[in-house]
């Protein structure tokens, strides 16, 4: 294929050619970044929480104006919940994943450290947490019964207790002690007493998205038995098929234990529902980006069709002359396709620079991660294919120009 005559023709239509190049470049830049953001959001939506989501229910309950017997009532509640047919296990937590508030604390590696190394979330649990939540212990051990204290003791300044042990996530261990086994190591968080890491669980996300995606699993579990009025979360594990039935029975059982409480209906639901609602914004943003991408591709394709049609019309005589001189239909078709390929290539080259620049801007303004380089060839291929499809119609019309037209005046 002769590229030189195509180039010289294009040079005579600089403005129109430049417009196509610019349009493709802009589309390429936006689409590469949008696709990347979509991927980023999808990754967030599909994150591993570490808990047996499909089997879990949350009931949030609060007392009316405080409860002096919260600890005893919590024990009764847990016994009633565990006795419900279909319940595998039940536990009480100060906080649960997929909500917008959380308990957090700074973590220091040395007692005298001025600023915390990082900020992690603190789950307070009772001794059924591992089995109920379905967490996977990958190193060390679970808490021993003697290590548990109650949330009342923890809050009482005169009780003189300290939190000596903690279970953390693998990700937190890697962040605090890179390349080392965190089991047995100590850190400082609450007060001046060290806390020893006794075990590591595979995954457990923090309740809210505080700290961004990179801090999602900066999670510590403490052996502090919360009473129900600390956060008010009962978590129940059952079979997925029995969730609705068990949830109803659980609410009834809790109401039967005391009528001085309110079940917060809005936050009492399955973890699947909690997760769906938690990621609603991320999902709709991904959809929006996808729609914008499709819209951009459509507009670009229509632009190419429009300009190519104009070109074909303008060059009808020239095409007729070429045909009369012996050019085949296929050669005419290839001419326009090559022309488009050249324009698209120029646009893509410019677009990649733009895409990279745009990503730099987004990184600095919106803490977006760096655009992986493989998004660029993906964007390029998409635009090449789009250009070829868009130009096919006008090119075929050009190919069907009869040679006789050369003899007619325009």
């Amino acid at each position, binding site marked *: 294929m002769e590229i030189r005559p195509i180039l010289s023709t294009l040079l005579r239509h600089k*403005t*129109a050619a430049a*417009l*196509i190049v*610019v*349009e493709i470049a*802009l*589309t390429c830049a*936006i689409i590469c970044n*949008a696709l990347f953001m979509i991927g980023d959001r999808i990754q967030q939506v599909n994150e591993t929480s570490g808990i047996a989501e499909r089997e879990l229910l949350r009931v949030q309950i*609060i*007392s*009316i*104006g*405080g409860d002096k017997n919260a600890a005893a009532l919590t024990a009764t509640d847990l016994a009633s919940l565990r006795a419900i047919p279909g319940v595998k296990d039940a536990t009480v937590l100060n906080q649960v994943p997929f909500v917008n*508030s959380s308990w957090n604390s700074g973590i220091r590696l040395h007692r005298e450290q*001025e*600023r915390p190394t990082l900020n992690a979330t603190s789950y307070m649990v009772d001794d059924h947490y591992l089995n109920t939540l379905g967490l996977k212990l990958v190193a060390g051990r679970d808490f021993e019964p003697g290590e548990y204290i109650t949330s009342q003791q923890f*809050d*009482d*300044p005169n009780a003189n207790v300290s939190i000596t042990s903690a279970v953390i996530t693998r990700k937190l261990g890697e962040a605090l002690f890179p390349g080392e086994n965190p089991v047995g190591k100590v850190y400082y968080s609450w*007060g001046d007493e060290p806390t020893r890491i006794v075990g590591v669980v595979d995954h457990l996300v923090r309740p809210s998205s505080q700290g961004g995606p990179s801090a999602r699993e900066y999670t510590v579990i403490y052996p502090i038995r919360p009473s129900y009025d600390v956060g008010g979360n009962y978590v129940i594990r059952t079979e997925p098929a029995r969730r609705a039935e068990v949830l109803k029975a659980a609410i009834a059982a809790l109401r039967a234990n005391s009528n001085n409480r*309110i079940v*917060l209906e809005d936050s009492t639901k399955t973890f699947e529902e909690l997760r769906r*609602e938690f990621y*609603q*914004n991320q999902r*709709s*943003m991904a959809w*929006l*980006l996808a729609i*914008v991408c499709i*819209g*951009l591709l459509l*507009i*670009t394709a*229509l*632009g190419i069709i*429009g*300009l190519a*049609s*104009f070109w074909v*019309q*303008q060059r009808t005589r020239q095409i007729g002359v070429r045909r009369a001189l012996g050019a085949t239909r296929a050669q005419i078709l290839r001419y326009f396709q090559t022309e488009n390929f050249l324009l698209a290539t120029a646009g893509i080259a410019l677009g990649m620079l733009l895409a990279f620049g745009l990503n730099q801007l*987004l990184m600095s303004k*919106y803490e977006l991660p760096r655009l992986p380089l493989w998004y660029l060839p993906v964007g390029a291929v998409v635009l090449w294919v789009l250009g070829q499809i868009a130009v096919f119609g006008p090119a075929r019309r050009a190919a069907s120009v009869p040679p006789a037209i050369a003899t007619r005046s*325009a």
Partner: protein
Amino acid sequence: MFAYYFNLALRSFKRNKALTALMVLAIALGIGACMTTLTVFHVLSGDPIPQKSDKLYFVQLDPRTRQGMQPGEEPEDQVTRFDAETLLREKRADRQAMMTGGGVSVTPQRKELAPFTASARYTSADFFPMFETGFLYGGGWSAKEDGNRARVAVISKSLNDKLFGGANSVGRQVRLDQADFTVVGVTDGWKMNPRFYDLNSDRYGGAEEVLLPFSTSRDLEMSRNGSMNCWGNTGADATDLNAPCVWIQYWAELGTPAKAAAYRDYLASYSEQQRKAGRYERPANARLRNVMDWLDYQRVVPGDVILQMWLGFGFLLVCLVNTVGLLLAKFLRRSGEIGVRRALGASRRAIFVQCLVEAGTIGMAGGIIGLGLSLLGLWLVRQQPSSYAKLAHLDPGMLLVTFALAIVASLLAGLLPAWRAMQVTPAVQLKTQ
């Protein structure tokens, strides 16, 4: 002349239906995307209290220990209870209010209604005139009730509807947690968007249903919410007067810039005095921000909304480049016609104007369809579950902006093609004809 060009433009549309439709569609899509995202941004970044936003100031102090101090660091976003109560007592502003968010349980007197929870704000008397709450019935409480830890409450219109069927409930009792409160006022559906006075929880979530004196809430140990930041030994109760924890929002109303400047000096000398007393360890580091500065500092508009706005503009830009190309094709296709007009005496300027009128007409058509698209887009936004989504409505101002943007954008897109069209030399065109 304009009418004639307009007529010519309409004729030209008829001759080139597909191309024209394509351009109108491109502009409409660009305008639709741009205006949808711009409207959401406009709504969320608006001034929640325009008549007073330059008179209300948010107070920040730095009561932390020396540990971990970094030069130039911003102070905490909230103040300690000790500082809030001291500032409130010293009354150096025109008006002042301390506050925190909370939650209470409401036990209705009507037996058929089960107890439920309501969002609450624990604050002080000046809150109501400062934030112009407006009242359907009754009014706020006075500083006397604050001091007496009185059991008085102001409730929202919606709670009044729920509990009292919308009747005037002033003087009636409402049971909150386990205490009886006397209703002194019912607000008139008052709400602020964003909820600038406390940005800790849902920023576009509407107003609290119950307001009661801060002192009373502490007396009854009512549950608080929002963010709390502590350092050092907090003791048993982090909400205690002397606990080293920040969890209270403090607002001052200062009528003139001079008063604001004087208040800044006051905060600096207060900090210094606290440092001398050994309570503060850091050098005076106070801030006084008015409403819009505070919203700006807190980056109240969600990042996604800003990102969407830029995406909308990017989309419009691509649509415009596309329109430039198509207009160019369209005008140059008519080179013959233009050549004849030029040969018959039309000036270059006339050709240019005629082309621009045609571009503007396309822009107007695109604007009308784009308006429909942005209404559709905003409707889609409102279907989202986030609390700010409900606010996404087009106001008359944005309606005007839509049309202005559509026409300006299409005129800009028309500039280059019109310029090229006006360069058409009559002789060459007539020859090839």
